């Protein structure tokens, strides 16, 4: 096991990730959390996978650098702030907690999330929000500042996905095609231009009503707070919502 440089101060800890192998790191992080550390600052992150995987409880983690794949996978409660970009699979099957990315995200961002909140300042890769689902009081939210790549919200079964379109040029359309393919639950709120051919065939488009704004506005406010935007300006942008045309898109495929 590599030695890990940790500076502890009451329930805070500062960890230097330079040259640290992920398995050793996560073992150490678990120990620190079990010992009662409630606030962790991880510096010099460079591709370490699985940071925060399966962590539980009220823990705040700040990561400076670039964490690796599967950041916060299966996580159940902690809040992670990343000052940098994140790679693939961030928030994989997230159960609860918050991940705030001051940068951009990789592919399958928030895959299969069942709860919690995810905020990305810039753009994300392919298949963001794929198969997000909601259950009882659990309702995941994923807010993307700029735009996303293809298959955004594919198979979406629940939760809220927001794409703000910030930074798109005038008349520039969003990058994603096949948006919401196979969607059968949840809702996507978008601002910025999307052509009809970019939408999955199971998706319908509509204006927002009062109840939509009750969901969207707090998310815009939180996004603005995290990244220093003016919430009023974002909320003044034209938004539309995408929702599933059918709750059972594959109900009529079978003979017997």
């Amino acid at each position: 096991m590599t030695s890990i440089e940790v500076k502890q101060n009451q329930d805070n800890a500062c960890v230097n990730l330079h040259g640290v192998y992920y398995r050793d790191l996560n073992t150490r992080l678990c120990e620190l959390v079990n010992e009662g550390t409630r606030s962790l600052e991880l510096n010099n992150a460079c591709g370490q996978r699985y940071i925060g995987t399966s962590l539980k409880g009220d823990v705040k983690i700040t990561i400076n650098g670039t964490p690796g794949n599967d950041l916060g996978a299966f996580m159940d409660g902690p809040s992670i702030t990343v000052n940098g970009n994140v790679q693939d699979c961030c928030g994989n099957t997230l159960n609860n907690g918050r991940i705030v990315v001051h940068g951009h995200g990789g592919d399958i961002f928030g895959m299969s999330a069942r709860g919690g909140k995810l905020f990305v300042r810039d753009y994300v890769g392919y298949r963001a929000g794929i198969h997000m689902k909601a259950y009882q009081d659990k309702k995941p939210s994923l807010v993307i500042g700029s735009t996303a790549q293809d298959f955004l919200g594919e198979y979406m079964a629940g939760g809220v996905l927001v794409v703000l379109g910030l930074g798109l040029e005038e008349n520039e359309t969003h990058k994603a095609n096949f948006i919401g393919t196979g969607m059968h639950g949840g809702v996507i709120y978008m601002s910025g231009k999307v052509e009809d051919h970019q939408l999955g065939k199971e998706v319908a488009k509509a204006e927002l009503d009062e109840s939509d704004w009750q969901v969207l506005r707090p998310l815009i406010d939180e996004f603005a707070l995290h990244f220093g935007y003016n919430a009023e300006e974002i909320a003044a942008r034209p938004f539309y919502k995408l929702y599933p045309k059918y709750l059972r898109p594959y109900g009529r495929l079978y003979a017997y």
Partner: protein
Amino acid sequence: MKTFLPSKFIVDRIEDRCIKCKVCITQCSFDTHYYDADDDQIKVRNQNCVGCHRCVTFCPTGALVVRNNPLEYRQNANWTPEMIEDIFKQAETGGVLLTGMGMDKAKPIYWDKLLINASQVTNPSIDPLREPMELTTYLGRKPEKATFDKCGNIEVNVAPQVKIDVPLMFSAMSYGAISLNVHRSLAQAAKNMGTMWNTGEGGLHSSLMEFKDNTIVQVASGRYGVQNDYLNSGRIVEIKIGQGAKPGIGGHLPGEKVSADVSLTRMIPMGTDAISPAPQHDIYSIEDLSQLIYGLKEATRYRVPISVKIAAVHNVAAIASGIVRAGADIVTIDGMRGATGAAPKVIRDNVGIPIELALAAVDSRLREEGIRNQASLVISGGIRNSGDVFKAIALGADAVNIGTAALVALGCHLCQQCHTGKCSWGICTSDLALTKRINPEIGAKRLSNLLRGWSLEIKDMLGGLGVNAIESLRGNRLHLRGVGLSAEELKILGVRAAGE
């Protein structure tokens, strides 16, 4: 539209035995029997009968006979009645033909072409009634070699192992596809017999947490019910990539089956379709698989072995090698005769390869590459009796999963109506009136009896070979001979022809 489909079965009622008790009416979940008040007679809708024999079994006077409809088409080796009727169905609906259970076609069953050796004169056989016989099996990654410290003590640094008392486990069958009472029966039987049952991909019902030491929890493409507590409720975590009945495709649990309780364990709202995508979208390569394997190891803090389950397909040996190198501790391979709660018929009957060939190919490949010790090999897909189990272990399996055989022990008559959700035996349904038909205590007893019977038979066969531990049989293909097999088949199976 008028259906051109003839009845599959004819139900004959022997009138002088019938006491009009109406048991047949209440037992049939397909509305085949009905009471005609005008005639004071119980009558039959033959077209509804699926041949499940529920009414026959429960008729107190033995008044019912169910037989095949003797309807004779003009003889045609190409256009069998099944082919004709399938076309009728699709012409009437325009849909994908859906079916349940495993492939029912007459594809070669290699178990029946493999024969087991026994000792005669030159080495003595052993009588298991008086001598100890060892069936204990350990699943998990085994060390490359024993290492010793400076004092000569053996260094124990073994990856997590799971001990099973018999080399038999229950296949993955999800809650939602099968009922909670069936899950409880399987879990209790696994506990009684010191082996494992598998949740399938539908999550674990909270009332079954007491069986956690005998539970394999599954993570599949839908990620239903997958969260921290669930992952840490199993002795093994299994990543499901595919299953033998429907390699390469996902599944749709229709909203009708997502009852209040099913919604609790799947963690989705009641009445919504549970769609399992065909691939896991975080796994597009062996490297990605490795990422999920280690993700689950992290999530379980390296306490449990991780299994990866795949369907037996053409390049299974190379794929299995990749899975082992990706870090899996157990590779589970499901052959083309493996069953399902619902699959497109064309896929069930045409995709995949027999488990016997896949097993032999995988075991040989892992040995050639010197990595066989790195993972245990578990196989499934149409295992019918202890003879099949015995041959599988001789071909190289560490353990065998049984699914169909377990359901048959609970009453399944293989009527292949699993996808309708109307299982009259109360197994493959979430209809609360039907699920009551399985009593978990009796179910567990029946399943334990089956495992006990097979264990005794396996010990008998081991004794006959002159060995006293299942470990001595494992991968020992010299104990097998083939009959009626081509040279190529014998080569793949790695066995000699009978007489050689």
